[in-house]
């Protein structure tokens, strides 16, 4: 579509939420054609091929792990948690941006969420799927994972509710379920659109089943909006609660470096920080590949960057508070911990973390950088790496040097640690690649509403009335 305005013409202080020239019909055409009409490109095929290989590596590694035991990883005593927990926290954190965008921003009536919420929610689901693997795989006796859930059993035993790991089971499973529901409910009108546009009878039938008989009746719309809003209300607290509980997984212990009250808020901020980084990592190539620049605009990129800046600052505050408290507490173990982070065996990881999460994101203060998609994308990758390192620093450095020096140790990941991690990245990307080709990656119905409200993107945001949510 040659009529799509180029990014270069939109590099204003506040780019529009959709570029001018978008109509109801063009939205539907543009989004549904990606699924229904677009041929399979070589790049997509190559992507699927590579990620499939990674998934094969993942299944192979998991098979070996289950056969041999968690000893194939680099964990030991004292460092009894390694890559598995780092990856779990990292993936769960990534998911948070999706829920934040779809639920929190919906409740806060942020129009710019519309074009990216579908995609971000899918990312959430896939990230949770990746995250969910790790707590199971990391169990010494994985076959008894269900003992962490409360269910009536012949042993007459319940989980031990004082342990944050049990809360974690509830938090993550609730989170996964609500995210799925929210995502699916939002999909229903679009699935109906897809059904109506599908030409292949099998595809038509599948969409028809998934669309749950949606006819676009006003009663449908009314109920749909009510359900959507309710789900948003339920999902919004999860943005805070899930990662707070993940934070408490650590904070409830007495390990120096874990035993800290700042963990819940700092973990939530970190989660959103990494989530937006992942959103940017994915949407920047996607909008280009599928020519969706007029729907996912520089405004989205800009806003994501700004949120990264804010949450990045909160995370930086968290680091500072930890360092301050290690001195202020007067605890020899806490102060040694900070000292060890700065100068110990793992100092490289710590300083790299500070560079990635605190220093480099400061570039986002500049409009010119926020508008440079190559830089933003690189920066998002840097933040993803940084947030992974943050968990590495928290878990590994703290455990490796705790109270009694005789038990101090080192953690060296094995090849199986790395293959499982890389495998989940492959799995995640494979799901994303599949998703963009089978479901509308942009919420068409909501975007059409947005077109209505912004008059095809011609009305600047400042002059708009607040969008009413029905």
């Amino acid at each position, binding site marked *: 579509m040659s009529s799509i305005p180029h990014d270069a013409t939109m590099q204003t202080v506040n780019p529009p939420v959709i570029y001018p020239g978008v109509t109801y019909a063009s939205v539907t055409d543009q989004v549904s054609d990606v699924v229904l009409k677009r041929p399979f490109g070589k790049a997509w095929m190559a992507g699927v091929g590579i990620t499939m290989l990674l998934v094969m590596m993942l299944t192979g590694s998991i098979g070996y792990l289950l056969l*041999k*035991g*968690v*000893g194939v990883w*680099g*964990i*030991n*005593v*004292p*460092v*009894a*948690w390694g890559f598995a927990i780092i990856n779990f926290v990292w993936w769960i954190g990534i998911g948070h941006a999706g829920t934040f965008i779809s639920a929190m921003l919906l409740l806060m009536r942020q129009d710019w969420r519309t074009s990216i919420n579908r995609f971000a929610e899918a990312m959430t689901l896939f990230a949770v799927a990746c995250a969910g693997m790790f707590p199971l795989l*990391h*169990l*010494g*006796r*994985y076959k*008894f*994972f269900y*003992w*962490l859930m409360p269910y009536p059993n012949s042993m007459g*035993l*319940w*989980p*031990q509710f*004082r*342990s*944050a*790991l*049990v809360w974690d*089971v509830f938090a993550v499973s609730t989170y996964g379920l609500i995210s799925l529901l929210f995502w699916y409910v939002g999909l229903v009108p679009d699935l109906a659109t897809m059904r109506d546009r599908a030409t292949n009878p099998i595809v038509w039938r599948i969409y028809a089943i998934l669309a749950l008989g949606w006819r676009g009746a006003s009663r449908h719309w009314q109920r749909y909006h009510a359900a959507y809003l309710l789900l948003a209300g339920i999902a919004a607290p999860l943005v805070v609660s899930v990662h707070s509980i993940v934070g408490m997984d650590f904070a*409830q*212990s*007495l*390990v120096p470096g874990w035993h800290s009250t700042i963990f819940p808020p700092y973990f939530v901020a970190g989660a959103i920080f990494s989530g937006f980084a992942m959103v940017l990592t994915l949407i920047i190539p996607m909008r280009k590949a599928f020519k969706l620049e007029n729907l996912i605009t520089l405004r989205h990129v800009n806003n994501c960057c700004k949120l990264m800046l804010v949450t990045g600052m909160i995370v930086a505050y968290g680091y500072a508070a930890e360092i301050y408290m290690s001195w202020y507490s*007067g605890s*020899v*173990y806490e*102060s*040694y911990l900070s*000292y*060890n982070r700065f*100068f*110990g065996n793992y100092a490289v990881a710590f300083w790299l973390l500070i560079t990635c999460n605190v220093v480099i994101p400061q570039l986002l203060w500049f409009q010119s950088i926020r508008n440079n998609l190559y830089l933003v994308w690189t920066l998002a990758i840097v933040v993803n790496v940084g947030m992974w390192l943050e968990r590495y620093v928290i878990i590994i450095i703290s*455990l490796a040097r*705790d*109270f*009694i*020096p*005789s*038990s*101090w*140790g*080192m953690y060296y990941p094995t090849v199986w640690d790395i293959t499982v991690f890389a495998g989940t990245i492959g799995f995640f990307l494979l799901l994303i690649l599949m998703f963009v080709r089978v479901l509308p990656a942009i919420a068409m119905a909501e975007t059409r509403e947005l077109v209505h409200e912004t008059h095809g993107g011609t009305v600047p945001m400042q002059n708009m009335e607040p969008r009413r949510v029905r």
Partner: protein
Amino acid sequence: MHDQNDPIELDEQPLRAWDEFAPDADEMPELADGLTRRSFMQRMAASMALAGLAGAGCNDRPTDEKIVPYVQAPEGVQPGKPVIFASAMPLNGYGKGVLVTSREGRPIKIEGNPQHPSTLGGTDVFLQASILDIYDPARSQTPTRAGTGVDASTFWAALGARLETLSKVDGEGLRFLSGTITSPSLIDLIQSVQRKYPKARWHTYDPMDRANRRAGNVLAFGKPLSVHFDLKPARVILSLDSDFLFDDLASLRYAREFMNARRVRVSQLEMNRLYVAESTFSITGSMADHRLPIRPANVAMLAQAIAAEIGVAGVSAVGLDAASARWVKAVAEDLKSQKGTSLIVVGESQPPVVHALAMAINEALGNLGKTVLLSESTEFGVGDASRSLKSLADDMTGGKVDTLLILGGNPAMNAPAEVDFAGALRAMSTDRQTDDSSSHFTAHLGVYSNETAFLCQWHLPEAHYLEAWGDVRAHDGTATIIQPLISPLYGGQSIAEFLGRLIGQVQANGYEIVRSYWQKAAGTKDFEGWWQATLNTGVVAGSASSLISASCGKPDLSNLQGSANPAAIDIVFRPDYSVWDGTFAGNTWLMECPRPFSKLVWDNAALLDPATATRLGLAGDDVVKVTVRNQSAELPVALLPGLPDGVITLHLGYGRGPRRSNTTDTGLGDTHGVNVYPIRFSDASGFSANVDVARTGKAYKLVRTHNHHAMGGPTTPTTSSGKALKPHAIVTPQTSEAEKEVGNRRLVRVVSLGEFKAQPKIVEELGGEREKRPLLSLYPEWDYSKGYQWGMSIDQTACMGCNACLVACQAENNIPVVGKDQVEKQREMHWIRIDDYFDSASESPLVVHQPVPCQHCENASCEYVCPVGATSHSAEGLNQMTYNRCVGTRYCSNNCAYKVRRFNFFDFNIHRETPQQKMLANPEVTVRTRGVMEKCTYCVQRIQNTRIEAEVALVNIEERIRALSDENQKTAMREEGRKREHEIVEGMQTACQQACPTQAIVFGSILNVGGQPTKVKTLKDEPLDYTLLRELTTKPRTSYMARVRNPNPALEGAHSRGEA
């Protein structure tokens, strides 16, 4: 339905038969769940059908084989109840009394025999681990000829033919080679052999035969007397390069007596004082109040200086450097003030002249007969040079040996460097493949088919000491009859049985041999009673050698000279803390047992002081080549602070070659460590001065269980930031205030006796502000004021870091061995570890051993983080681990501040391959599966047994009380019950406690039992008691008693490195 026990119902229906005539008698009575006749039939039909389906596995046919019902059980065996037998473990010819626990005929655990003079109930690692050897599948299992399995009768036919020829020449050319022998019945048998073959010769060789001490005694007293010590009265002890707490025949006894005179309590404010001048770092050295690292060659000079200072006749003063001179002066003064209650002990590594000199000093101090006890030696053929290995090897090469029978031992591996025994044996056995007409006949009897067996034509499996009858003497001559606990698992016979058969005794039965000997020797009419009593106690009453008095000759010091060259490198040979002289090199428990100080596992190393290493440009894991008189060995370097400058310590017994003659397999799969016997010459068996050490440029990965850097150990010179990151864990009254409050973890508290006397609360003071803070918890307090409340007290003054507790725990609790690669990954499974803290403040470091089992915290941090509640707290204060419930999140381990939890990262029990290995497992302790967390249980199986015993006793007494009518009698009986309960509960010992030779570990109820305070309660009330990491509010049940030193005020503050 009618309740038949209900009397009213019975009244109404006097006869059961009336039921028959009830109105509805022809109907099936309807059952509570609505079961009718019809549904009953349906269910019966269904269950019959199912029974038919299951018939294959559930028939009522007996097995095809004949089985024997357990009608008449063996006497004294009650299924499920352990039986304990007294026996003795021979090592280097001398015995240590043991009590062996047997379950359903399987020996599973060894403890010390409290009645035996050498052990006094304690054990060392070797006693504990010897139980593993009996089940070792690598043991020799069949007679072999040239490495191929043969029938024993083939061997005896061949030997018989040989002996027939030999008997015509009075046994000319028949040679025997054995280790040291003290066994009375065996000596008797040897004499029979010698009567039959008068020209046969018996050689003995033992790499640990204490030749230097014996030669020293010859110098001093004119004959090879046996020397042992009484440490009870000794107030001041000087050890000259002696590791008498580890490597002496009666080390267990010495350790017990030494520590008993060292325990400081409120009621006992006296302790002995130990000075150690040594050329290595020994566990005795780690106990010293003043330790002087010194070159091995200079020990003689030091001894001379002390002798001169004390005024031994004919000894002139010797020039020493200022620091050593000061040390000598102070030590001599101290010794002089304790005449008759002092002791000088010299290590086996020192030459005879030093031993003789020490005897002269002991005599001058009036210690002979008081702390130094002399008796005639009980060794067979002691001091006869013609019996040496060297003369045998010479005869072998000289063609004078026709038939060589090697009974036990491994001289091909551990012969002195100058004796090429292996070469001579190989030359004799060149025709080992050929027929019976070969010119020579060589045979080896051994528990393992070792290097020596490999070079012999024939090999026969020897019975393990738990498999055969025998007898053995202790250090003081006390004999013990060795009882077998099990018939030989892999065939095998004892040396006595072999000799019996050799001289043609029809009943070459170990039992008959031993019994008939003692029948003669016991000299009692009621032999059966004597025999029973002797087997019962494990000690032959009155068999100790009588003490004799002797006086020393004037020591000849003409050849004494020290090592003056400060740049020279000396090497010191020591028996290893885990494999001894190599006897235990195949024992995986011992191989994986972290060596004291170095915490090395699975390897030996060239131990070097960091300063020496820096001087030589060496770092840890560098491989060096040590050359002595053209013989060399290549070893990796391990750094250990506290060794004297320029001295390398080498441990013997490693680098064992192929152990199975028929394969190239090296037994455990790999050779571990390096054999240093090839550079150990018999005239330098203790040390070699001025050797060549060269870097090879190679490196070898050594594995240690401690991060030495963190323990106050050496800072590797290559890490620049290292020093600042070193944590501080030892706190003493000299520790600076700034460090105490900021950087010190206060895990180890050390006070001197004087400081403790002056300020009894000093240990609490050392805890600082943190010790005084109130302990707050979010959770409500549990009431721990009732019943038994288990706790443990560990005395760091008494712990010498010998590892006996660690191996005992491994044996008791079925703890697997994980292998070097897993230890490298920090996955060792030991439930108790010994942390060796080095006080880096001084150059001759103070070392404190801290055994760390589970602390059984009342507020256990492991418990609340477990999502499935697999670890929980008992009402008696035990932190329990439910293996079945564990899913393996490992959070408990992360959150354990003491890191005592161990995780089964793999199926570590997979090494129990053979049925024999499975027999070893203690049936009272679960064998843990993969993915399960485990840890010290305070030996909960023993606790349960004790509780049952106490409960049964109390119930019995309660019944007797009920039968009594008189109130006074009742009260008396109640009092008796309380006493009995106290006795039973106090009698319970954990495995680590029972093994500990110094009784450093005390376990029991921290509340009064039967109205009386328990040992552990008394100890916990002592002011020396403290807990680790108190400020974490974990409230551990395991507490520690601070290390108390007894420094000489004249030397206080003189920590500097001395060089004589």
